[in-house]
């Protein structure tokens, strides 16, 4: 099984061509009939897309001597098998039998993705990981210019990964965002998820009796326990798919210097308006914590929160409080 939700289809012509160049060798390589559903699951595309692509094949092929393709110059499929059994059988093939090479950039992109996975010591140590880079390079039409990936040094990462692989419980001290004190949690660790530079542990929390997310940089005093984990990643995925974003978020309006427009894109604003005449830019963004606003203010040149009033006041109080501490230190 390739992807979990094969409900997609490529949108770009280039991606569709890539699919066709792979689909034909795939059909040729099959020992017996393969169903539309199997092919769709294999490629991670929708059944509808795979069926339409199969129906497209007999319209493609070689120009032929006359310039008007004769039957043998075109691909052909067993229509009967497709209609009655939803099976894919290629009955005439032309020109290609093998999968194409990767472009240098395609190879570079997937090698770079692999390097990110290799930040996980368990993956990096696997034989598959080590064999893949060389194979991908040899699969490319040119020398891949692969972006480098810095090492990941997160305390506790390796221990958590071992616990996940061994399906064992762990215990740690954790201070939730906004909580005054840390609590001891015992959890079934299920998966480490990274988004850009922030890493989270998804786990079943025995204290809360629910699936919870923990920031890795807030986990302290991690211990590996002997007790086996009671829950698995499949249950987790089921729980996540029923999850809807919580309330408690606010829409704030921030004015900023248009020179920083590329910077604010990273915060995924709802709207951005730039008045070229006055040189003023404004954006709105939905935030669930004021910490996001602080980070934005720290990073984006000329950023000022203009509303709502309670967020403006909170920012003012916060900056005044921080400054008083630096003043005290100096004086």
């Amino acid at each position, binding site marked *: 099984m390739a992807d979990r939700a094969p409900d997609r289809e490529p949108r*770009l*012509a*280039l*991606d*569709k*061509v*890539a699919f066709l*160049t*792979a689909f034909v*060798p*795939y059909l040729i*390589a099959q020992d017996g009939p393969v169903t539309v559903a199997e092919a769709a699951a*294999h490629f991670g595309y929708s059944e509808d897309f795979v069926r339409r692509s199969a129906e*497209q094949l007999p319209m*493609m*092929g070689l120009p032929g001597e006359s310039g008007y393709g004769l039957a043998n110059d075109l691909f052909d499929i067993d229509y009967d098998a497709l209609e009655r059994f939803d099976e894919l059988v290629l009955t005439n093939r032309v*020109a*290609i039998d*093998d*999968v*194409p*090479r*990767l*472009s*240098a*950039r395609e*190879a570079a992109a*997937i090698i*770079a*993705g*692999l390097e990110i*996975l290799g930040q996980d010591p368990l*993956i990096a140590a*696997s034989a*598959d*990981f080590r064999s*893949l880079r060389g194979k991908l390079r040899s699969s490319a*039409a040119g020398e891949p*210019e692969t972006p*480098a990936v*810095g090492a990941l040094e997160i305390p506790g990462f390796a221990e958590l*990964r071992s616990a996940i692989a061994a399906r064992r419980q762990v215990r740690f001290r954790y201070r939730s965002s906004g909580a005054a*004190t840390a609590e001891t949690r015992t959890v079934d660790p*299920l*998966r480490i*998820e990274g*988004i*850009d530079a922030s890493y989270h542990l998804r786990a079943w929390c025995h204290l809360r009796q629910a699936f919870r997310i923990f920031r890795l*940089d*807030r986990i*302290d005093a991690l211990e590996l326990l002997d007790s086996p984990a009671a829950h698995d990643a499949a249950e987790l995925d089921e729980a996540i798919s029923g999850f809807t974003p919580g309330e408690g978020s606010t829409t704030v309006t921030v004015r900023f210097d248009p*020179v920083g427009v590329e910077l604010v*894109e*990273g915060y995924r604003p709802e709207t951005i308006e730039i008045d070229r005449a006055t040189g003023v830019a404004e954006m709105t963004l939905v935030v669930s914590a004021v910490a996001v606003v602080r*980070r934005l203010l720290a990073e984006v*040149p000329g950023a000022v929160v203009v509303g709502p009033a309670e967020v403006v006041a909170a*920012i*003012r109080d916060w*900056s005044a409080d921080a*400054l008083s501490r630096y003043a005290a230190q100096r004086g």
Partner: protein
Amino acid sequence: MASEAPAEERLFNLILALVASRNGLTKSEILQTVSGYRDRFAGARGKALENLDRQFERDKEALRDLGIRIDTVDDPGDPGNNQRTRYRIPREAYELPDDIAFTPAELALLGLAATVWQEGSLSAESRRALTKLRGLGVAAAEPVVGFRPLVRVAEPALDPLRAAIEARAVVEFDYLKAGEATPTRRRVSPLALALHEGRWLLVAAEADGYRLTYLLRRIVSKVAITRSPAIAPEPDEETQALARLAAFRAGNTARIRVVAGSDAETRLQHRSDTRVLEPQLLEVHWTDLALFADELVALQPEALVLEPPELVARIVRRLEEIEVTHG
């Protein structure tokens, strides 16, 4: 006018025709015979013919983007006459070499690798690579489930810089140095890209070969790819750049007093190279002064920076600006 065949059919037909032809096809043969062109070629004159010509040029580019090499052979009796140039795709350059095979476990890992990138060309290209390799028909093993990293940082500068590095071309862009109000124009040879602590970095050389590292986040204009050839990268440019960054970081030391049990304490203490000098007094290293100051501003007031003074000054200046503008 008959309805036009979809672009992917025309492109696929072009691939098939050029692979199958032993001696290659001239442009006019292609336009007259390959399905997707021939229907538009019949009776086309003037503007329509020019459009078709441009279509053929774009299609050749598209095939190159897919990694397909198109060879051109001049007519020996009429060299230089591009009307008689023959195009072909050499089969050995098109096909994946026979001796390359992937195991089910490798394909499972590739399936995961292709979903790491959430944005831009890296995402599209890694998925395309996976689609092609899935054509080998090897069923993937159960995927590795313990780690799922996603990189969604969207940098508009990334795609043009990748293209420029590949083309070995000098680039120009406006760069907004942290803490400065106006960007300055830079003209550099792009050498390599690196993802470091969640940020994209460009390793580039100035005209005299001096290496500089730029944060893509701070490139605030479009990246212009010039026609000037770039300085060639050293073989391990990225590794060297990452090593330079590590050495630089080790030399940048701050002493910070944190509030016990605060978020600032936990997070600063979790940086891999932080030292606890005494309870709540940390020695912390950073790579980029301005960025580190930004991070610390966001962690106020729970992280009081004692030194160095330039870091304190930046934090205080930014806090003062914020206080004034929110007064």
